[in-house]
């Protein structure tokens, strides 16, 4: 029998509760050595120069990906046009819904496979791809499937536009695909979608799911490639609609390219969201919200709460608690179920985060990261915060798109609003206070498409999402998300 004297436990050196590795198995995914383009229901070779997609956590090459040339884009748009005029555009909404429900169910059934593949290709922790990306993506299909036979109640008409050209970013590859494809298909459009060049694999897996669901050929076409491919796609004459999520620079170029055409456009661009913490906030939950706001998905979130505005009277206490909490974040292998912060998606993005962080230091802000061991291969950046940041610092104005938080202070609600709105962006904002009336007042004052109260980074298919100012225009999600894919009331 162990004769331990119960009361002496704390005087001896204790072993630490060090979580052993708990890796999710890779065996469930089958990554092929090379992938073609998905056009008219089939995988075909691309006419461009193929490129490699890598695992950002290890720099291991995952697969060779075809590049769509201008001719390939033309073939894809033609396939989509044909599918629209012959099949999808004239199919009753009730029938379209069946396909969308089927896709949603297959996404759920193959959820673990999709989640693992997403984490491998993107670098995001498996707990996020498993608990957020995949279920929310499936939820979008379920939600819009419900709209397909009820368009007359949408307020935006029942006539589809035709062919939608969709270009999505690398931060939520599958989820952004769902945000784009689900409403387009529900409204009766066909799509040609280009995933980001660093994260094409789940979009190509989605192509397989379309085959599995017996979706008519040409309704969904996936074309891979980089900027040029995207340029050809949005510039194609026979496209009725352009939907883009990504950087403000590219969004601006797209707006220019389609200006003067009849193409309908929705743009969901960058952000520099303020997360505003008042002195009467539930502090522990606010700290969680700050962490979730900026370190969720390594900060690769357009609506990330990258500017913390904290009331000066509690700034010190909040910072202390925030630092303590940041010290418990586990950075590392994205496939480990206990990882909180994964890998930065690409060398290019890592360089940008490093550059802007260096500028923050040069401009005199106080840089802090918890001690953490980063893997030697792959692209990594520790969770970082900058204190003493003012509106005049570049790190308070430019989107870093990484796990870097700028901390600013304010004294009064009016000052909080002024500082929060003083940005060219306007995608999201967070308000933390126990006072309901203040939440409503703030929500009215803040020029941001989404205002979260006592929470952050919550996404639901029923809720519209989109920006003010340089964060873009148009809304995705909810009833509003249908507007961009219908001809309007007539």
């Amino acid at each position, binding site marked *: 029998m162990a004769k331990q004297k119960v009361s002496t436990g704390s005087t001896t050196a204790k072993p630490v509760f060090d979580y052993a590795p708990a890796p999710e198995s890779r065996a469930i995914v089958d990554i092929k050595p090379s992938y073609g383009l998905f056009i008219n229901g089939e995988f075909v070779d691309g006419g461009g120069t193929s490129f490699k997609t890598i695992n950002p956590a290890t720099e291991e090459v995952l697969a060779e990906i075809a590049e769509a040339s201008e001719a390939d884009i033309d073939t894809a748009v033609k396939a989509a046009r044909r599918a629209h005029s012959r099949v999808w555009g004239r199919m009753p909404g009730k029938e379209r819904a069946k396909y969308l429900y089927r896709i949603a169910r297959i996404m759920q059934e193959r959820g673990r496979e999709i989640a693992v593949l997403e984490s491998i290709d993107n670098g995001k922790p498996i707990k996020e791809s498993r608990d957020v990306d995949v279920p929310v993506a499936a939820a979008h299909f379920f939600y819009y499937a419900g709209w397909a036979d009820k368009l007359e109640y949408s307020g935006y008409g029942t006539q589809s536009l035709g062919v939608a050209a969709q270009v999505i970013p690398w931060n939520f590859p599958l989820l952004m695909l769902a945000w784009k494809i689900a409403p387009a298909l529900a409204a009766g459009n066909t799509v040609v979608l280009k995933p980001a060049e660093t994260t094409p694999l789940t979009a190509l897996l989605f192509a397989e799911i379309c085959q599995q669901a017996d979706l008519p050929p040409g309704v969904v076409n996936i074309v891979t490639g980089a900027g040029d491919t995207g340029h050809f796609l949005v510039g194609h004459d026979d496209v009725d609609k352009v939907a883009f999520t990504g950087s403000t620079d590219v969004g601006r170029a797209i707006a220019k390219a389609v200006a003067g055409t009849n193409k309908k456009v929705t743009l969901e661009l960058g952000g520099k969201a303020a997360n505003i913490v008042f002195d009467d906030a539930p502090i522990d939950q606010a700290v969680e919200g700050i962490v979730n706001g900026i370190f969720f998905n390594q900060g690769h979130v357009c609506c990330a709460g990258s500017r913390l505005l904290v009331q000066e009277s509690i700034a010190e206490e909040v910072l202390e608690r925030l630092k303590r909490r940041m010290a418990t974040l586990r950075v590392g292998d994205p496939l480990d179920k206990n990882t909180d912060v994964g890998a930065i998606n690409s060398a290019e993005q890592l360089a940008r985060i490093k550059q802007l962080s260096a500028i923050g230091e040069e401009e005199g802000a106080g840089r802090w990261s918890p001690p953490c061991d980063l893997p030697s291969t792959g692209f990594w950046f520790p969770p970082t915060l900058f204190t003493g940041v003012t509106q005049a610092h570049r790190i308070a104005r430019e989107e870093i798109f990484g796990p870097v938080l700028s901390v600013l202070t304010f004294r009064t609600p009016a000052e909080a609003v002024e500082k929060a709105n003083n940005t060219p962006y306007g995608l999201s904002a967070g308000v933390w206070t126990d006072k309901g009336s203040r939440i409503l007042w703030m929500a009215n004052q803040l020029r941001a498409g989404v205002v979260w109260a*006592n929470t952050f980074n919550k996404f639901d298919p029923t809720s519209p999402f989109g920006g003010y100012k340089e964060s873009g225009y148009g809304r995705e999600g909810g009833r509003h998300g249908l507007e961009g894919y219908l001809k309007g009331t007539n």
Partner: protein
Amino acid sequence: MTTTPTTTASASSAAGNSFSDVTSSESALRRFLHGLPGVDQVGAEARATALGTRSIKTTAKDYAIDLAIRMVDLTTLEGQDTHGKVRALANKAMRPDPADPTCPATAAVCVYPDMVGIAKETLGTSGVNVAAVATAFPSGRAALDIKLADTRDAVEAGADEIDMVIDRGAFLSGRYLEVYDEIVAVKEACGPAHLKVIFETGELQTYDNVRRASWLAMMAGGHFIKTSTGKVQPAATLPVTMIMLEAVRDFREATGQMIGVKPAGGIRTSKDAIKYLVMVNEVAGPDWLDPDWFRFGASTLLNDLLMQRTKMTTGRYSGPDYFTLD
């Protein structure tokens, strides 16, 4: 930082003094408790759920299971308790797995005051403590002198630890000072015995109340704060325990003094117990990962921990007949 139990005991009365302004009057105490930061229910529950998704495997699981066994207050609190039952339970506490001598003992057995003597006699010098519930457990509805007599009786019979219940009626009607004074009085009656203060969080209902009760009990000198009697549903939950862990963490920040936490009731599986340990580790910090600072009030939990422990060593699950029923 590690604090030995002896320094804690003396620091505890010092802490009582450092809050003397706060506890000087009903209104000052109310101002202080109502001035604590609020708890957002949705956010707190989401955080507790997220911590529950940690995956604890292999060596970490070995460590967690042995630690959890050492943290169990093996409990029997039934009207039908007899000397025979308590003796059996005490033997189980000392040798949870007769087939495996490397299996650690539990922290304590927890019984009604009239069973303390027999428990103490059985446990002898094994190091397993005797905890007694007192103060008109579980309702707490009795006059103060009866509660104090109940406490003294248990301590005289040899209880090392007293688990008292607070007066929820007084708390819910806002008579905080009355609750405070009662805890102080019971603590005095405890003498050398350690005091655990039970809130019955299932009756306090809101997280704001749990946070206030935690500070109240810590300021009054309780060594442990405990969720429940096990007689009211819901008993211990992850979010409630998290609020209490935040309270002891913040209390140490403020006073330098460590207070223990004991969730009790409803924790039945190893998987649950490990979720609690993860929460202790990440919310209060690793210093609390010790039977001196964290306990499980449980009865059926122990056998599940033993089954998992055997599975970890042998690679096979054994049937329930391979573990003793007491």
